[in-house]
């Protein structure tokens, strides 16, 4: 079994700031972490490895310092890592990111399953996982809550998807691209053995020249069809608290339901 996990290095803060000049995230200054949703993808891949044998390769596109996040994935138990890092890759939107990652996945090759987090907590689009599937012409199983069945010989997978209106069971052929939700598992801590391995490991860094056959026009900012016109911090919503008073609980409930109907909540 060979699982490829795509991870993103994101700023470790909920206070994400934007550069008003370029309309992109400011990544300096703040500590970076593995996008929390991606840690569930790593964990699921490691569980597949434990159950079926094989290996897990972790892949990331980002600045050179994203090597730290790849090493953390190694410390958790992943076997190999590749960093896609070059000036040409910078400023990519979700389409160009998916394209670049898909090219790298093809170069890594020989995969049975690709796992991603459901979305990144900085950009929040949730498009890269499905984008990779599209680029590679693979089935996409998004918002996966549980792998019910997986058979690498028959090359089939059955998953439960967590949707707003309930759960959906889907069967697919393998290889497939999965994006996972956080309810799927509890990610493990890195181990000391993993930390020792991560220290010794030299993580290969791939630039456009390493992705043979890829069209360089599709990399980075210039390859991104998305044009961000404006990004701004929305004004804080003003909350208001109103205490409902009454003689009896029934009376209070009546007033409350009237108010809710009045404001068209119910």
């Amino acid at each position: 079994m060979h699982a490829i996990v795509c991870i993103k290095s994101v700023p470790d803060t909920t206070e994400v700031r934007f550069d008003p000049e370029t309309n992109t995230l400011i990544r300096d200054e703040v500590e970076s972490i593995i996008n929390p949703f991606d840690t569930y993808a790593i964990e699921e891949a490691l569980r597949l490895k434990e159950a079926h044998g094989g290996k897990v390769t972790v892949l990331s596109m980002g600045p050179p310092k994203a090597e730290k996040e790849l090493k953390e994935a190694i410390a958790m138990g992943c076997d190999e890592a590749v960093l896609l890092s070059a000036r040409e890759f910078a400023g990519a939107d979700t389409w160009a990111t998916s394209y670049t990652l898909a090219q790298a996945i093809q170069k890594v090759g020989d995969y049975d399953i690709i796992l991603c987090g459901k979305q990144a907590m900085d950009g929040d689009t949730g498009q890269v996982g499905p984008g990779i599937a599209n680029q590679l012409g693979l089935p996409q199983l998004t918002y996966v809550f549980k792998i019910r069945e997986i058979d690498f010989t028959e090359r089939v997978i059955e998953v439960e998807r967590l949707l707003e209106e309930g759960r959906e069971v889907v069967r697919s052929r393998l290889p497939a691209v999965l994006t996972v939700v956080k309810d799927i598992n509890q990610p493990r801590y890195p181990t000391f053995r993993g930390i020792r391995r991560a220290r010794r490991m030299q993580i290969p860094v791939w630039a456009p020249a390493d992705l043979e056959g890829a069209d360089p026009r599709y990399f980075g900012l210039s390859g991104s069809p998305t044009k961000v016109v404006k990004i701004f911090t929305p004004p804080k919503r003003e909350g208001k608290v109103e205490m409902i008073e009454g003689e009896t609980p029934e009376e209070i409930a009546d007033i409350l339901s009237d108010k809710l109907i009045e404001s068209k909540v119910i």
Partner: protein
Amino acid sequence: MDFSFTEEHEMVRKMVREFAEREIAPTIKEHDRNQTFDETLLPKMAEQGLLGICIPVKYGGAGMDYISLGIACEELERVDTSARVILSVHVALNSLALLQWGTEEQKQKYLVPQALGERIATFGLTEPNAGSDVASIQTTARRDGDSYILNGEKMWISLADVADNFLIFAYTDKSKRHRGMSAFIVEREFPGVETGTIHGKMGVRAGNTGYISLQDVRVPAENLLGQEGEGFKIAMSALDNGRYTVAWGAVGLIRACLEASVRYANERYTFGVPIGQHQLVQQMIAKMAQRLDAGQLLCLKAGWMKNQGLRNTRETSMAKWYCCDAAFESASDAVQIHGAYGYSDEYDVERYLRNSKGAVIYEGSREIHTILQAQYALGYRQDKPLRCELPAYDQEEWEAEE
């Protein structure tokens, strides 16, 4: 000269921080209130490899260096002192003493299961009538054929009621005073060993502290650690390691105080401004930051010396003395900053204050360290080489499987 942590140290810090926040923080208040020891914690720490963090891989450990041990202590005590105490007694006071003084047979039999966390270990030196005055212990060990017969009572022993292996100090020849003291590896299963828990402590209430009673306990002669009469030196060298972990833990406690105080100083308003704007609050916060930086540097120096295999009794004592006083003062200021809320257990800082007091007393009281440092400065005290020194950290050797 290089003041940066290695990538590996950063990963250890992150891992232990996550572990402490996920496994200890959610229930710590309840355990502290109820004075209960979290029984699930030791197996989790064992699984994570923390119980053998700086023990060579070939002895079942994780193969990290002594600074990693310190970082783990800092991160555990940042959440609660009771968790750090586990590393102090199990790893530093007991397992490192076995690594330093033990025979290969003793290491295989006792160190390996301890590093793997299959057996929990502690250190039995203090007695009801002997703390700082170590030479006044009353426990005795009488030679009887191939064994020793131990009798005595140990008190204020961390993990007493939880541990499987005890390092017990006893007189084999009382007339020689501290030159007649010896160290023994005692198993809980040996007939005549009884333990109990002490309740009603001011702090570290989620930690297990107790007594060990030894009544005609027959200990095989091969369980003598070091040589007969070397017990005092073994005890003091073990304290160089125990105190090191206490000092690092105190740094974690200062960090917790600073984090809590900064958070609160930005949230709480008085006189129309966040209290962080008041200069007297700023002074308390600035001093915490100062103590954190100074304390960490002292710990790092001691850790670097351990890694190099240099004798560090003076430096470790200095770190322990400074950091524990600094933690107590920081916790007191943290309560002050939190005002009446800080005085209630709704916030963590009152627990920090109660926890910080113990370390000003145990592992060399403030007064003992003051006198030690005066003696070093005046030239009254010099450390002589030991027959067995704590081995310097050698990455290759520590990571070797065989």
